[in-house]
């Protein structure tokens, strides 16, 4: 069929013309490493933490939740109720990655091993000692680190509790120590609503951070990229880093998401492997080598409109939220969230903070009906859109009190073109979501599922008029691709 082949070659030509027209745009961004984002959306909420500490008693219990790690399917417990542990003692590991230990954040006694349906391991609770006692591991001096081998680095980190700080892309799961990444990415700031200030939560960690970088550089043949906000002052913890590439990024949220930074610096294709670590994780790894201890202490921002005095507290990974609930939040029907309001998890007043979280958000619960709520005009309600009666767009700087009301029921996708406006990546989100819903593996891969984790589509979920649980949908897709 000669006509047909002519037609298809014609289309191919068209495709290539289009493709090259877009390429040039991408290349400019690639070379400069000074990324400017236009698309995205900053959510301004009441209750940003003031840079000071609230002295709060430590909670009695801490817990590690295997559910915080999506790769864990068959955890193997190493402790039993009644055992005593030190900070850094291994608690369990995942059978498919048996060198990576998940360790106790504090010393104390294992008081409860909580299981859910089908005996799924939910929480390992530790009744903490008054004075946290750390297990002492091998220390490395600066000269030791020069000659250290990759294997030694891996075994030291993975045996003593810091390895889960290293996340791999694709899939957003704890990195497999048996693999080697193309590069390691660190985002130097958090652009989520009311996110903690990186300089504040990493105070006095400069040396550990640099040690961490030195150690991490043994893990990849490529570069370590640290990406900082172009509009903020460089936090002192990053002031004197060496041996890595420092990029700048500007623009609205999700500029601070490491996935967006990777997308513009070193896009992930099929078969590529990139590791990401938070600055907190880097410092923790650094301290493990410099001091020989697993230090799970962290500074947590307590934020949100329902917090009396939004500020920071000192605690440890997996802290129970009861002290915060008792001492810092207003009365009323509130939701206590571990993490930020876009990607966090509601844990309640007696729950445990997530492994990766260094923020608690408290906002009003929104379980009320509103008379003609879909019609009434309002400047108070926060909306990305300028739809009839929604006036929040007139003043984007205004800080809003936003509750957990979903504002409407679930519907099929109707609106088009909105997700792209909050997604500063060359990705077509709706087509990707539809591919996931249809379990179309080929299209999931081609449309960019390798580049994304939940936080990258959180803004889409926020603005979705049809109220889809898009982060869950993405995770389902990721698990489908990962297990195929």
């Amino acid at each position, binding site marked *: 069929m000669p006509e047909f082949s002519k037609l298809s070659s014609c289309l191919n030509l068209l495709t290539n013309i289009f493709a090259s027209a877009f390429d040039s745009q991408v290349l400019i961004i690639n070379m400069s490493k000074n990324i400017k984002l236009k698309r995205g959306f900053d959510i301004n909420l009441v209750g940003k933490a003031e840079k000071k500490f609230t002295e709060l008693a430590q909670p009695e219990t801490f817990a590690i939740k295997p559910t915080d790690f999506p790769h864990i399917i068959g955890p193997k417990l190493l402790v039993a109720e009644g055992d005593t542990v030190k900070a850094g003692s291994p608690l369990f590991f995942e059978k498919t990655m048996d060198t990576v230990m998940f360790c106790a954040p504090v010393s104390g006694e294992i008081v409860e091993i909580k299981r859910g349906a089908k005996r799924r391991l939910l929480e390992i609770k530790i009744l903490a000692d008054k004075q946290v006692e750390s297990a002492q591991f091998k220390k490395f001096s600066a000269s030791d680190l020069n000659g250290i081998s990759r294997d030694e680095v891996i075994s030291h980190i993975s045996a003593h509790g810091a390895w889960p700080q290293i996340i791999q892309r694709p899939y957003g799961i704890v990195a497999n120590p048996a693999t080697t990444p193309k590069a390691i990415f660190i985002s130097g700031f958090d652009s989520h609503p009311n996110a903690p200030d990186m300089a504040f939560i990493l105070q006095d960690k400069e040396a550990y951070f640099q040690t961490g970088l030195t150690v991490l550089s043994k893990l990849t043949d490529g570069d370590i990229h640290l990406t900082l906000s172009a509009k903020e002052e460089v936090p002192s913890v990053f002031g004197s880093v060496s041996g890595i590439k420092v990029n700048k990024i500007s623009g609205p949220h999700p500029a601070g998401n490491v996935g967006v930074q990777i997308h513009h610096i070193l896009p992930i294709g099929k078969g590529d492997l990139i590791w990401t670590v938070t600055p907190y994780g880097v410092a923790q790894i650094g301290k493990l080598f410099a001091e020989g201890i697993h230090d799970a202490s962290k500074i947590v921002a307590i934020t949100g409109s329902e917090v009396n005095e939004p500020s920071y507290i000192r605690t440890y990974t997996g802290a129970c939220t009861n002290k915060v609930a008792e001492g810092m939040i207003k009365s009323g029907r509130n939701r206590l969230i571990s993490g930020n309001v876009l990607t966090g998890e509601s844990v309640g007043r007696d729950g445990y903070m997530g492994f990766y979280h260094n923020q608690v958000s408290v906002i009003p619960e929104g379980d009320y009906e509103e008379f003609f709520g879909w019609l009434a005009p309002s400047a108070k309600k926060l909306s990305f859109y300028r739809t009839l009666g929604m006036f929040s767009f007139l003043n984007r700087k205004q800080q809003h009190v936003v509750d957990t009301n*979903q504002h409407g029921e679930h519907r099929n996708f109707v609106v088009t073109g909105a997700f792209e406006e909050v997604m500063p990546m060359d990705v077509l989100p709706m087509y990707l979501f539809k591919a996931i819903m249809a379990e179309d593996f080929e299209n999931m891969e081609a449309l960019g599922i390798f580049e994304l984790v939940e936080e990258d589509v*959180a803004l889409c979920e926020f603005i979705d008029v049809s109220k889809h649980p898009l982060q869950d949908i993405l995770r389902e897709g990721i698990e489908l691709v990962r297990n195929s």
Partner: protein
Amino acid sequence: MKFLQNFFDSIEPKFEKGAKWEKYHPIYEGFRTIHFSPKLVSPKKGAQIKDAVDLKRLMFTVVIAMIPCLLFGIWNVGHQHFLAVGEAATLTDKLWVGSLQVIPILIVSYGVGLLTEFIFCVVRQHAVEEGFLVSGMLIPLVLPPTIPLWQVAVATVFAVVIAKEIFGGTGMNVLNVALTARAFLYFGYPSQMSGEVWTYLGDKTPVDGYSGATILSYGAEAASTNGDMMALAASHWYSGMFEFWNMFIGIIPGSIGETSTLMCLIGALILIATGVGSWKIIVGVFAGAWLMGLGFNAIGANSYMDWPAHYHLVAGGLAFGAVFMATDPVTAAQTEKGKWIYGLLIGVMTVLIRVINPAFPEGIMLAILLLNVFAPLIDYFVVEFNKKRRLKRATV
């Protein structure tokens, strides 16, 4: 509003699972959520806060944007009536006559359409969706004022069932619902959809020399008889009827809501300012029609082709189609580049059908339906470009 809430609470048990009216729960739910936005909260994991906009508000914005067209349409139906019968009339008279014609059509469209939706919601046990808020308004606006009410009812049922519900409801349809209703009548009952239908005469006799011709029918006539279109238009019984500005303002016979380009542009302004309608599609349709008009000007094989290109933009239903029909996000192209192509092709096709095919004096309806069908193909190519580009980036 506590008493209304209490009322809903008091009848709720009757609609719960296992209760007497269990299967009517979607209707109960539908009525309750119209009065009160539901108390649903965000799930435990993921985004804990949600944008304040939902589909109801979005759809309602479109309805508001159509109100200028509706009001002008009501006036114009009355105005054309009194022009044709040669009587002087006040504004009130015109609005009264117009309302008597238009409001029943509106009521039938909404009434029958919602009833059909409710039946489907009960049978299929899905929630009452908002899509018909817009379709129910669109259908009357694209019909002639003389349309028999039973035809409105039949067409609405056909459109809701065949164009939408069998595909799975709002968000799943391939063809624009309101245009399907119009196309159904156009092909099923042509005598009520073409010819002397655009002006409501009632039982009165029109003035001497009256004809119900539209500018597009003059064009088609000129093209087939090789006559002079402008001369035909100038010889219209009411002089000045088809001058550019008269058509732009919309004081011409036609479907109820489509005649006024000005009112459509006000609607477009609302849609674009609120971000609900895609400006790319609207601009695309106008640009496509104008460019195609210019192309025909260059060929100039007959007097219709010579018709100045900008006249195409104010004639017939082009503006209304561009602003309210082509922008339907469900049936339009869904990628941003696709929207340009989609809009442009609608404009091009509209003028092509108008000028080349005398069997169909107006082309916008068929152009949009055709491009509804092709929109997924346009998107397919845009998505393929994206995939290719992504692949190239990652392997550099």
